[in-house]
């Protein structure tokens, strides 16, 4: 198997007495979608924060294409190709939709002038926001804000895309469109890590599923195998199914 684009090795993070990440190992390859499931408090979002640079782990290392980025800031990681979305979208509300994407393309993506504009137009079309380009982000609804969150992450042309519960609150048609889009990103060679509560949405696109509980990876493998494991059923599905 080719070398991982992004890898976390024995990553630990404590908040006071609570070990939120208790020795997590994870690797992500270009052109694959990895899903992360687990109950609330399993450490999924903390894992994402540690990978994106919002938090620094207590120990362990994170590498991007064999380069140690454990101590790099979120901004530096973004420039190196790690982009993320937030569970609760955080658009720059005083700026237009286009400006939101443009600032990402020029800052994180390092694009200039016409290149930046073309990229932004393409990304907005891809995310179904082109008709709202000149609207202020303040006026967007939740679904549109989620799309903008994704568009902003794509505007940095990432090698690794970290998605945090982006499918919540979507209708079936909307989540189908989202799945199709993520599959498209995968086919372009982007490594996608997708945290999601709604397992059946994940199942449609992920090649590998990781189940976390209490800060540890308790199961990992092909999605159908993982959801069938007893430990996963206990931790996540509460013994049902």
């Amino acid at each position, binding site marked *: 198997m080719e070398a991982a684009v992004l890898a976390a090795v024995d990553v630990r993070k404590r908040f006071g007495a609570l070990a939120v990440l208790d020795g997590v190992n994870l690797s992500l390859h270009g052109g694959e979608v990895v899903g992360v499931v687990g109950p609330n408090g399993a450490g999924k979002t903390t894992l994402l924060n540690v990978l994106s640079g919002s938090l620094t782990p207590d120990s362990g290392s994170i590498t991007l294409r064999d380069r140690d980025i454990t101590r790099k800031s979120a*901004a530096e990681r973004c420039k190196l190709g790690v982009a993320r979305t937030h569970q609760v979208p955080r658009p720059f509300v005083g*700026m237009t939709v286009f400006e939101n994407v443009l600032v990402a393309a*020029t800052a994180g993506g390092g694009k200039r002038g016409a290149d930046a504009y073309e990229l932004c137009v393409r990304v907005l079309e891809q995310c179904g926001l082109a008709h709202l380009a000149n609207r202020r982000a303040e006026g967007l609804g939740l679904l549109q804000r989620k799309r903008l969150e994704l568009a902003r992450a794509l505007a940095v042309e990432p090698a690794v895309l970290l998605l945090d519960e982006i499918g919540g609150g979507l209708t079936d048609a909307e989540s189908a469109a989202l799945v199709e889009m993520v599959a498209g990103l995968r086919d372009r060679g982007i490594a996608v890590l997708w945290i999601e509560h709604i397992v059946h949405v994940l199942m449609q696109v992920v090649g590998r599923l990781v189940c976390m509980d209490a800060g540890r990876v308790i199961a990992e493998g092909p999605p159908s195998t993982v959801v069938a494991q007893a430990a996963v059923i206990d931790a996540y599905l509460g013994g049902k199914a």
Partner: protein
Amino acid sequence: MTIVNAVLQGIFLGAFYAVLACGLSIMFGVMRIINLAHGDLAVLGAYATFVIVEQTGASALIAFVVSLPLMIVLGYVLQLTVLERSLKAGILTPLLATFGLSIVVQNLLQLAFSPDVRSLGGSAGTITTASWQVTSGLSVSALGLLVLLVAVLLFGGLQLFLSRTRVGWMMRATAEDADAAELVGIDSRAVYARATALAVATAALGGLFLGIRSVFDPVSGPTQLIFAFEAVVIGGMGSLRGTLLGGIALGVAQTVGAQIHPQFAVMAGHLLFLAVLIVRFGGARLRLRPV
């Protein structure tokens, strides 16, 4: 006719307040720092220009251009050494840090220049005294017109900078949500340093106009800070365009107040500030707004 003249003079005076207030507005808008040393930085800028004038005999306007790079560097250093550290310690710490900075600057100026009153008026050429008598009760001074022109160009330029340039977008994004900005690749430390450098540069411009219009001494800063702060609050905190209008409103209130009684001028400005505070109470606009 006197009232028309009072309003006109108020606009000129207000443009000066707006220039003074510009940097205060930038620092609050981008970093939520209320810089209590802003007035002292303006006075420091005036002294920097003054020293160059004394040493070289150049015009105050030329000397200002020479001193500007020094003030910009000072802004960067100030951010990276003092303000950045204080920002990490909660919202009260920058207030205390800038208060301390204000005292340090005042005392250093006392030490270096004595408490004597200085002026840049004599070295600014005919611009200080030239004026046009439009009618018997209406006169337009060259200096007033220059300050107004510079204020409009400064604020207009800043709006263009924020809405049209890459660094401007980065500054607005960071002002709104520094953490989210980091995640799209914006180094907030660098943005903050640029914002402070810009603020100190505009403070120095305010100091130049202070020195040409009137006189200054090492403890002139706090008075300038009050007017600048009032201009920012009247215009809506964090709104640059508001700061320009707020400065002009303050200036007009003062000159019109002076028509009622010469001693009432400054008080009229304070009353306007108080009225705005009461009307806006609890509804302060806390965003650096684009055009």
